[in-house]
């Protein structure tokens, strides 16, 4: 009997929890209201993490915009772990938020939790990254850059810059993440028509500066490293790391090796101003306002576009100086 005691104690405790507190369950009863008595919108947002400057700018913008629009934001950082993100999403359901938005860590594995959210009748907005699901009704809208287009633009710029002749190395983002997959795809599309543009090496730098630098160093060590004339980096952070590696290798980034990356963070503009980076394709992290807008509409059962492409441009060195002061992130 003694052996059973802890088990029994545990069972009792859990039963008490389940029944005692379970009674409180009441849908929609408790959302925050603002001073005017008007119902305040609650948005659950699950962020990937804080792996790059782009990401932290994105998080900050979402928080700022939520405050500005009077949205009650429940923000959760997944520390780049899918398991954490799934937990956060399920917790949003439990909290009965009005709208859920999230940037998925990876593309796969979202089916069950999205189904659960759908069953709870909470609309979902995908922010900046897409998911791979068989049932398109699992999310209401996807806002964010067109990664494939970004890749294409980067490829196009590089083709113009190098006259269609380049030996390219590629720094890939987190394996399995939508931007990594799509940017690689778009870039390849764009250079497909230039037979003299070849990607000779391609490895993951995990979207981080440290890894980007490390991997670039390895690229530059190879005996055929001298032939590298261009670098395509899936984000600015990795490119910034790579620039350091190139400088250490005694070569001139931006001149010996043409560099194009994606995101358009402040550091990239500084690098362009210094002539070390040739081009950054903007991927605008300031989509908080648009997300808030979508969320409000969804909460009011209005129609929303299934795909919202964020506004972004392509910046080369000529525009860098003018643009730099206005870059906040």
């Amino acid at each position, binding site marked *: 009997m003694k052996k059973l005691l802890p088990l029994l104690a545990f069972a009792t405790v859990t039963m008490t929890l389940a029944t005692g507190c379970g009674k409180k369950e009441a849908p929609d009863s408790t959302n925050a209201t603002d001073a005017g008595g008007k119902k305040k919108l609650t948005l659950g947002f699950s962020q990937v*993490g*804080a*792996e*790059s*400057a782009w990401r*932290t700018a994105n*998080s900050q913008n979402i928080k700022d915009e939520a405050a500005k629009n009077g949205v009650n934001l429940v923000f959760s*950082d997944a*520390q*780049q772990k899918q398991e954490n993100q799934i937990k956060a999403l399920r917790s949003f359901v439990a909290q009965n938020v009005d709208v859920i938005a999230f940037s998925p860590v990876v593309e796969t594995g979202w089916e069950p939790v999205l189904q659960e959210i759908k069953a709870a009748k909470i609309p979902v907005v995908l922010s900046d990254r897409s998911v791979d699901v068989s049932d398109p009704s699992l999310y209401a809208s996807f806002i964010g850059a067109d990664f494939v287009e970004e890749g294409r633009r980067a490829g196009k710029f590089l083709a113009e810059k190098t006259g269609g002749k380049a030996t390219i190395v590629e720094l890939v983002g987190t394996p399995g993440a939508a931007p990594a997959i799509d940017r690689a795809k778009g870039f390849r599309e764009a250079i497909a028509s230039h037979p003299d543009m070849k990607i000779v*090496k391609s*490895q*993951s730098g995990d979207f*981080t*500066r*440290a*890894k980007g*630098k*490390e*991997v670039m*160093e*390895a690229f530059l*060590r*190879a*005996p055929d*490293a001298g032939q590298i004339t261009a670098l395509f980096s899936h984000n600015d*952070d990795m490119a*910034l*790391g790579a620039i*350091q590696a190139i*400088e*250490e*290798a*005694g*070569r001139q980034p931006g001149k010996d090796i043409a560099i194009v990356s994606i995101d358009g963070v402040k*550091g990239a503009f500084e690098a362009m101003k210094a002539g070390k980076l040739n081009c950054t394709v903007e991927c605008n992290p300031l989509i908080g306002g648009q997300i808030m807008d979508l969320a409000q509409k969804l909460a009011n059962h209005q129609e929303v576009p299934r795909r919202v492409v964020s506004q972004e441009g392509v910046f080369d060195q000529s525009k860098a100086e003018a643009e730099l002061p206005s870059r906040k992130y």
Partner: protein
Amino acid sequence: MFWPLLALALLLLFDYLFTPGFFRLELRGGNLYGSRIDVLNQGARVMLVSLGMTLVIATGGVDLSVGTVMALAGTVAARLLVVDGYGFIAAVSGALGIALLAGAWNGVLVAYFNIQPIIATLILMVAGRGVAQLVSDGQIINFNDASMVFLGNGHFFRLPFTLTIVLFVFVGMWALTRQTAVGLFIEAVGDNPVASRYAGVNARLVTFLAYLLTGLCSGLAGLVASSNIKSADANHIGLYLELDAILAVVVGGTALTGGRFYLVNSLVGALLIQTLTTTMYARNISADIAPMPKALVIIAVCLLQSEKARRYLNQRFTRHQSAALPAITPSRAQP
């Protein structure tokens, strides 16, 4: 000394034969450049941490929190520089201060509260990165302070400046342990704690000191790591470095059960690990797969060092006797 050097030599031989360009060394921008220099430069962090880890392992303990302490130090320095606007000296002092504090924390838990080292340092390993995140407010802090950038990127006598730091720490550590009696005491305490106590050695203080020094080494490594990429990323600085460091120390012949320690061998061990990593990069093997060969090296080296394994075949005849005797599990953590 023999095994790690042999392993390193074999690995280098392999690279010489099969990894083209690995042995090329040239002068670029006035500095030496090549894969081997990379090994030295990237390996600096592992070397720094291994130096500290060697002492902790020599006392019969282990420090799992070194990677976290690196992140803490890097983030504190970057924050002081960028967010709070202090100068280089203040930033470095702040970073090393927090690293010493972390080391002292571990030391107190292990030496004075008798908590098993694995668990005691696990606490900081788990919580420390969270603290680092709070320090950085969840942001990656980029900095451009010239002195700070020099730490991890500068050159000195045509070699990466990090090597100077390693050399400096090594000499300091060597002086501290071998020019004072601290080294002797650490070895005595690690080898036979009871006898050391009877001989009048202050075992607690010695253990505490080992953790304190490890904290300091990790702090320096953290500064180097964040300086190297000109930014402090609380999530990633020093991730898994504790494992590389433990591996370097064990490969270097310092037994996990404590006792004799070999600072130079740990450096060789660290170089071996880093060469392994760099070789894999150079051979276009993903960094993600890199742990696998490392694991095989760990187990192989430990089996080579294990007396029991060596005797195992001989003992097969009198197998029964060995089974009936208490297995000697080297855990000093037991109270």
